[in-house]
């Protein structure tokens, strides 16, 4: 045998191994004794960081509260946080690392529906339960029986939003503006079109844009020319801010309300669009004055720890961790993924802060068994709109 070849191969293997290790995304984890590990994958940086940071903050608050109260059946909950940086390849890396290296019992995430469609099939194949806390496009739980969704789908929330808006505003003609390259925003358009048909509204114009676009003036000019009574927008927060600003700057009258999907539920929309966000209507899974007994405790604990009020995404992540913990407790295991899956399907009335009733169960199709509410932006705040 030629040792030069062996040495060369060993060197190549070693370099590859080092590069792969270096290329691993950074993880933050807490060491522990009798431990159960759960992965959290969120876009903490990148275009969706407005959602990801809230998700991480809400989840970590829940995990720390659980551990202070003695953990899950005495086991320490090790919440491993990974930043997917709004990059599909990074989400894939994180899932594989958490499943294979960190041996997590389940994963909470990812942030965007478009990321979920790429990465949840991997978890399904590996038999790892996933709880989505912010995916709202259609078809998430259809990816397999290990994929659970506790966030309300657009198909559930948007009909309620438009029905509520109609009861106040009585509009007849709508325009639709949506991103045509993202699963969530495309889903919004599908639901908008179906709901418009359901309520006998006339769609006077439909325009599209791409994620990352900054200039919507041509589309908004065309929409303005079609004279709609309301504009339905399927966009994530960065584009929503620009659309609201540019729409008002082009002179679209304030009597024409913007009605958004779940992307509008971030305070970043209010801070980015300022006065131009006034009157924007969106359906939400969580409300600060929600009836849940847990809710006020959650809000004050969140404010005390982070110095700011929580938003819907933080509340959903908080609930996500608690639902995962309830499943782990019911399954009485720290590592059996299929037992966890079975336990999650059987969960009944988990106390949560989101939803109208304060308790949570999964539906038979592993979707969220709770009801949402509608809110409107008034005087720089989300105000309940009933």
């Amino acid at each position: 045998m030629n040792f030069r070849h062996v040495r060369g191969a060993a060197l190549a293997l070693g370099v590859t191994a080092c590069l792969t290790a270096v290329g691993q995304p950074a993880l933050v984890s807490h060491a522990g004794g009798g431990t159960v590990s759960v992965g959290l994958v969120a876009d903490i940086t990148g275009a969706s960081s407005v959602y990801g940071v809230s998700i991480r903050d809400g989840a970590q608050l829940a995990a720390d509260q659980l551990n202070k109260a003695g953990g899950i059946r005495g086991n320490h909950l090790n919440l491993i946080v990974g930043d997917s940086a709004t990059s599909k390849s990074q989400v894939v890396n994180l899932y594989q690392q958490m499943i294979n290296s960190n041996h997590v019992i389940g994963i909470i995430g990812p942030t965007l529906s478009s990321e979920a469609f790429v990465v949840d099939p991997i978890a399904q194949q590996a038999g790892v339960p996933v709880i989505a806390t912010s995916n709202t496009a259609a078809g998430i739980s259809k990816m397999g029986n290990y994929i659970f969704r506790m966030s309300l789908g657009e198909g559930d929330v948007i009909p309620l939003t438009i029905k509520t808006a109609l009861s106040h505003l009585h509009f007849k003609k709508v325009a639709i503006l949506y991103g045509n390259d993202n699963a969530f925003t495309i889903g919004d358009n599908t639901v908008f079109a179906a709901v418009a048909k359901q309520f006998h509204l006339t769609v006077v114009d439909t325009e599209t844009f791409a994620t990352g676009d900054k200039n919507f003036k041509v589309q908004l000019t065309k929409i303005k020319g079609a004279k709609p009574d309301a504009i339905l927008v399927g966009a994530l927060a960065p584009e929503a801010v620009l659309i609201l600003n540019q729409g008002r700057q082009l002179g679209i009258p304030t009597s024409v309300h913007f009605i958004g999907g779940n992307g509008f539920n971030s305070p970043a929309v209010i801070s980015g669009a300022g006065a131009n966000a006034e009157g924007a209507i969106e359906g939400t899974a969580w409300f600060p004055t929600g009836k849940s007994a847990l809710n006020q405790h959650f809000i004050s604990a969140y404010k005390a720890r982070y110095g700011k009020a929580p938003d819907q995404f933080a509340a959903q992540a908080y609930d996500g961790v608690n639902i995962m913990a309830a499943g782990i407790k019911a399954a009485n295991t720290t590592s059996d993924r299929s037992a966890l899956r079975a336990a999650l399907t059987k969960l009944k009335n988990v106390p949560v802060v989101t939803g109208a009733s304060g308790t949570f169960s999964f539906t038979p199709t592993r979707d969220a068994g709770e009801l949402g509410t509608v809110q409107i932006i008034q005087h720089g705040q989300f105000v309940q709109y009933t």
Partner: protein
Amino acid sequence: MLQQVFNTLINASIYALFAMGYALVFGVLDILNLAHGAIFMLGAFTAVQAVLGWHWPLVLAIPLGMVVGGAVGVVLDLVAVAPLQARGSGFLTPLISTIAAGIVFENISLGLFGPDAYSFPTSVFPQTPITIGGAVVQPVDLFVIGLTVCLMVGLTAMLRYSTLGKAIRAVAANRLAAQLLGINVARVVAITFFLASALGALAGIFYGLELQDSISFNMGGSVQLRGLAVIVVGGMDSIPGVMLGALALASSETIGITEIGSSYTDAIAFGLLFLILIVRPSGILGRRGSRVV
């Protein structure tokens, strides 16, 4: 309608200022400066830092951004381009060098300013909309269009009539002959880079003024591609060609959205590019084989 004309003119102005940088450098040096998008970004960041961080008035922040952009362009020339050209490298090596420089600039920005997007505060420009005909425009829109037109006219006049302009055209026509005639070629090249980069930086500032939340470390990416389309359509080294190409590209984007549907904007813009490459590869106003800066 008139509103769409204004939308088109604003986009065309930004594309024209940006693509002018490509045209100047290509005309004089025969190389494509692919760090230009990063300079576009650095100009915007400098101005927004001056306004937000040091509370400068906009009227001072804009020249600062242009000067900093121009200076970065000169540094780019001295470090990444001139040494390679002195060694007689062809077209490709300096191109790759500018790509590398662009990546470095983007990462410097990422390190200094993070991944978030910034805006000019709304207080820098009066926000009162002006109604012209049926169109609603903001004062900043008129500023962008007006200043761009003035600069294009000034640049064309400078190149045609001033001594520096003639020197630039001489170097562009035949570098060796210009040197033999006593023109300091290295100085002319540096000045060209300064000018090209200052215009690119100004384009970045206008982009940031026009659109909220648009100043981020990777803002050069989409404009870079459109700038290349502009000079291919208009002619790689022709100044009037750049203006024509910018108008053509911006118009095709607007027409694409209004007539066919916003899903097809990119397809239409680059379809135009493709058509020009087939029918007239030197561009509408470019001339094969000879240089006209």
